[in-house]
């Protein structure tokens, strides 16, 4: 059985990872996966390249799949308003299909 779900992709600096995971937990997301990468965006100057030796300035992508589209919107809105106004980061949503809905 396939179920419709929403994939939330969050890109930000690793230094903010913990705060964002807290938001996810507060809003009830059941799991997430984190990838490290490099990046370049509009905020400040090349944020991913500050002191490349220091992990905390790396870009991370946090992927969260949730079943409830309202939860997805709520998470995205909170992140935009509370964090990504004045610190680097972007959030995008997309539709995915998953199996075994109790996991999400």
């Amino acid at each position: 059985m396939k179920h419709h779900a929403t994939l939330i992709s969050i890109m930000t600096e690793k230094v903010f990872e913990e705060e964002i995971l807290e938001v996810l937990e507060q809003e009830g997301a059941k799991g997430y996966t984190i990838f490290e990468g490099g990046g370049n965006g509009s905020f400040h100057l090349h944020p991913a390249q500050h002191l490349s030796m220091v992990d905390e300035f790396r870009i991370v992508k946090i992927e969260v799949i949730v079943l409830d589209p309202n939860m997805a919107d709520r998470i995205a809105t909170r992140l935009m308003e509370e964090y990504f106004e004045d610190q680097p980061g972007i959030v995008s949503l997309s539709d995915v299909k998953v199996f075994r809905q109790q996991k999400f």
Partner: protein
Amino acid sequence: MEALSGFISLILAGFQTPTLGFLLGGMFMAAMGSRLNIPDQVYKFIIFVLLMKIGLRGGMEIRNANLAELLLPAFFAVLIGVIIVFIGKIALARLPGIRPVDAIATAGLFGAVSASTFAAAMLHLDDVGMEYEAWVSALYPFMDIPALVLAIVLGRLATQKEELKSTHKHKRKEVNIREIVIDSLQGSALSALILGLLLGLLTKPEPVYESFYNPMFRGFLSILMIIMGIEAWQRLSELRRVAHWYAVYAAIAPLLHGGIAFGFGIIAHHLTGFSPGGVVLLAILAASSSDISGPPTLRAGIPSANPSAFIGSSTSIGTPICIAIGIPLFTELATIVF
């Protein structure tokens, strides 16, 4: 006059020392567009070994030291860290084109301590044969943490002021000083130093110190200097895009801060017999600016501050000046004064 010419020839000789030579070598390669880079896990390992080495030696000496002697320098270290941040807040923040939060974050980084610069200073004193109390490494957190905490507190206040002017409101967490202090102590650099101190104090690490940590010191430091040279050059391009006053501040700050600390060191020398080498190291703690744990701590603590400004100032200008001029200058000063 003789002192001056002596100092100049010291600087020139300094360019031939591996420490400074390797730093400049790294800068040169980066300037030439080289893709030379030391893997970041190796970098972290090198930092770890250097700090363990410094900590172990400090710990082994504290065993036989009179801890009361540590009190006055430790108190001075706190004081110096605080003074540096206030100087930055008052002087740097007033310069044109500089946002208050950015000034405060930069001052915080200069108040904090660079482990690698400190290691370079110790090696320099060993090489010229100037003695120092090995427990001076234990002063590190006493200067580092107050500077970072104060900068974050002032930075948050400045941010709140800015935000009151704008319309939207954040639900920002309150400033929690205890949390920041603990978070600083838990950082990887301070942790390695503290672990080394504890192991030096409580166990008998002489065999492993002599067979590994001590012999690796010089080689690992030389590689660290190359890394820092590369970083210094690469951050320069970012620094260029922010106000030029940062460069001015970053060039003066190491010598000014070191000078202030040197003064406090002289007082401690007269009051408790703090050694000339110890005074030099105290000056370098002050003159150096944090390169490992400081930046992310400030980034998380004052997210609205621009890292290009504070990291650029410290890594690209502050650190090279501190190593190239600060270390030989304060060493020379100590041979003159004492």
